[in-house]
């Protein structure tokens, strides 16, 4: 465990965590000894970053070890009072969410009637999506119903978001309500 502490300490310094936290982390280990022990390990000199598991709602702490632009190791965060270093099968293998060859790495477009994906640039995607959204929205927009403002479109839906961060869900809700979307749903319902 000691090598983890060393790396976590480095992280906490970088992230500007409070002195109080540092003091707790620093208790009880010899830095030189740790260096000697970790020299040959894959995770030696890896950067360690705390995260929270992406799967269920328990919210276990995980430490992500990164080196040379890849994720070399993940493990339970011993400091987390939720899981105290333990993880289940999914949390344990979370490294493969990054390393899996199945990950999408480019924006893909499928044209009407087409059998295949085409690679496109982000700019093209954003511009085309904005055009489609505006076209549908403008054509289906209802400003008033029975004399009252209703400012909505019932032709666009938004689904999903339970895996997003809070800040992302906030912006998504703001965007969709801002566009007048009423078909706004996510996994809490299903």
């Amino acid at each position, binding site marked *: 465990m000691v090598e983890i502490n060393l790396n976590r300490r480095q992280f906490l310094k970088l992230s500007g965590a409070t002195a109080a936290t540092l003091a707790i982390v620093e208790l009880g280990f010899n830095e030189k000894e740790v260096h000697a022990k970790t020299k040959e390990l894959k995770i030696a000199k890896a950067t360690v970053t705390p995260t929270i598991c992406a799967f269920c709602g328990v919210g276990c702490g995980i430490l992500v070890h990164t080196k040379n632009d890849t994720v070399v190791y993940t493990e339970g965060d011993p400091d987390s009072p939720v899981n105290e270093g333990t993880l289940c099968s999914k949390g344990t293998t979370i490294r493969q969410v990054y390393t899996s060859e199945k990950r999408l*790495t480019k924006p893909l477009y499928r044209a009407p009637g087409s059998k295949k994906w085409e690679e496109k640039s982000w700019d093209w995607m954003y511009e085309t999506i*904005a055009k489609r959204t*505006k076209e549908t929205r403008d054509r289906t927009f209802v*400003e008033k119903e029975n004399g009252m403002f209703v400012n909505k479109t019932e032709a666009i839906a938004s689904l999903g978001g339970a895996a997003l961060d809070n800040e992302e869900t906030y912006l998504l809700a703001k965007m969709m309500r801002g*566009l007048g979307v009423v078909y706004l749903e996510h996994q809490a*319902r299903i």
Partner: protein
Amino acid sequence: MTNHWSDLQNTDCALIMGGNPAENHPISFRWLTKAKEKGGKIVSVDPRFTRTSSKADVYASLRSGTDIAFMGGMINYALEKNMIHKEYVAEYTNASYLVKEDYEFNDGLFSGYDKAARKYDKTKWAFETDEEGNPVKDKTLSHPRSVFQLLKKHYSRYDVDSVIAVTGTPKEDYLKVCEEFCSTGKPGKSGTIMYAMGTTQHTVGTQNVRAFGIIQLLLGNMGLPGGGINAMRGESNVQGSTDFGLLYHLLTGYVGTPTAIPEHATLDGYNKKETPAGGYWSNKPKFLVSLLKAWYGPNATKDNEFGYHFLPKGNKNYSHINLFNAMYKGELEGAFLFGTNPVVGGPNAGKEKEALSNLKWMVAVDLWETETSAFWQEEAGSDPSKIDTEVFLLPAASSYEKEGSVSNSSRWMQYRWKAIDPKGESLADLEIIHMMVKHLKALYKNESSPAAKQFNAVDWNYGGGDHPDIDLVAREINGYDLTTGQLLKTFGDLKDDGTTSSGNWIYCGFYPEEGMNRSKNRDNKDTGGGNFLNWAYAWPANRRILYNRASADPSGKPWSKDKAVIWWDGIQQKWVGNDIPDFKPTVAPADPGGTAPFIMINGGLGGLFAPTLNDGPFPEHYEPFESPVKNAFSSQEINPAIAIIEGEFNLKGDSKKYPIVGTTYRVSEHWQSGSMTRNQEWLSELAGHMYIEMSEELAKEKGIKNKDQIIVSSARGEIKAYAMVTKRFKPHMMKGKMVHQVGMPWHFGYKGYATGDTANRLTPHIGDANTTIPEYKAFLCDIRRAD
């Protein structure tokens, strides 16, 4: 959760029903194990003998869809055996309220039922009030129209023999469960109820949870350490995404969405109709106006009702099932999907896939190519040349390739720091959303149509770059005093005059001053009771145990030393203890309202009788939409208040053709629709095949052996899978009739490393009467050998 994960160690008895934490929330179980080490008991109630059951002290089986019968019997047991916490019930619940004479219950129907509309007139269930509008009480609880007496009468019908004839539970097991859990009614004891989708995914899902609420109030378990009602949430931030209003009926912080009814035409009208006279929700106008200020910024002024008219106002139920029904009928043109896969996870998934081809365009933001974004492919059984949907698939970054906070089941808002840059060209959803808004803003900039006006009013300032400044988003969520520009320290400071902003009032205070985003707190010292007040931030106000005023008696002393959370300190004249009081800290027990712990509710008392739900003030047993038996409790077969979509979108199976009860569940190695796990090598290898679990008795009857290929059919479709013949399912005997049940994981689809048929091709498009959550957990099917 009213309580939190590490608090589970404080329980004397955990009743786990409609959930399987040992497999689906595995790390939560270590806290239950700790409780066991201290002498606590675990009770598992489930149609299947799960890994949770294998660790339980008591296990009882029940047929899927009979939870209210099961819990109704327990309510009756507690009342008859006098195992309730009487003082708690008399002081902290609405047991003493009198209900008006209009209230009636006959043969499965409450008063006020409109058969044609399948709706109740809830005014028929009102409380009797005095001239000032306060509820009339009988503290002796003996008045025949007191809530207590009505409750007793209602559940007297749920005697043990009637209950087990419906649930199929062996009598001995049923009595053991009741005895064990009701023993937590003694002061000094606490019991928790833990549930998940096995409880909510029913046409009576909300009332299932209500039944938990009633028993927990009767036993005095709310507000106590090791007590409460604890929903185990299945996704890392489904708590947060709900808090932030990604549902048609909610804005942020559980403020209801305004609708196209005349009363909601103006902000004043909305406030009048939706703001209760008492309880903390009486502050609702402050939450709403502060939200409007966060969303519309300088475009929200007193003169334009703070932009209230910009909020979209719908006139129907837009929930998941209805959304797909509208899509199926061709009423929707475009859809945005953020990390969601309804072709595997939606009910009646075959129909949901068909519906997608009616879209003109779809934007899917995901880490993977899912069964949903690929619905048009030949591999999906589609003819691409006949599908005109344009699909934009945008690669998203994973959770540790970006930074931000998530809220777990315990309501703990914890920060995830960025470990590595997004893979390939993938981007954080935060940036994708931001850039879509920026492009749309550019298109609308010079327009003044009503549509443009609404969108141009949205205040969107998160820095100049393509990647928004997340710190600015976090601060906006917390909110500001707009007169000074300072961050707000508490939602208690919110105002309804436009001088404060807050993107989500329940989170207001998590970022109280410069440099202090409390979701980043990492001090893991136990501050007492296992509450870890300096680790992360729990909404609201960093409270860890909700309703904790109820952990003390009316005079302010803890009911017992072992279960103390907060107590009244007469010298300091305030509430003190191991947690942030979920109560006004300076209101003394002798002050008005000083003994009313449920602060959100008008009157502050726990609702044994709840005249607010769509399907009745007390939970009543009805059979699932598809059931193998007649309802033994009344002549109402199914929940009389559910909305039924007729026709091809929701075909209903007959028990003669489909005599077997089917249910779905998850396994440890996969997650939800499987896209996050079936695209990983190790997990795919660990759990690589779709299977149907069945009893030895059923297998014998059908000539099926373990590992045989079998076909499961329902009125909606057929799927193929391996047979898993186990002792974990047992047929239920119901009044001499044998009813079989099978279960299956719902993780599989045709993409990824581990593939298999999709269980949700079998499930129906029918929802709960209050939430419209689909009834995945009890449907009818049949099985046969594939060869």
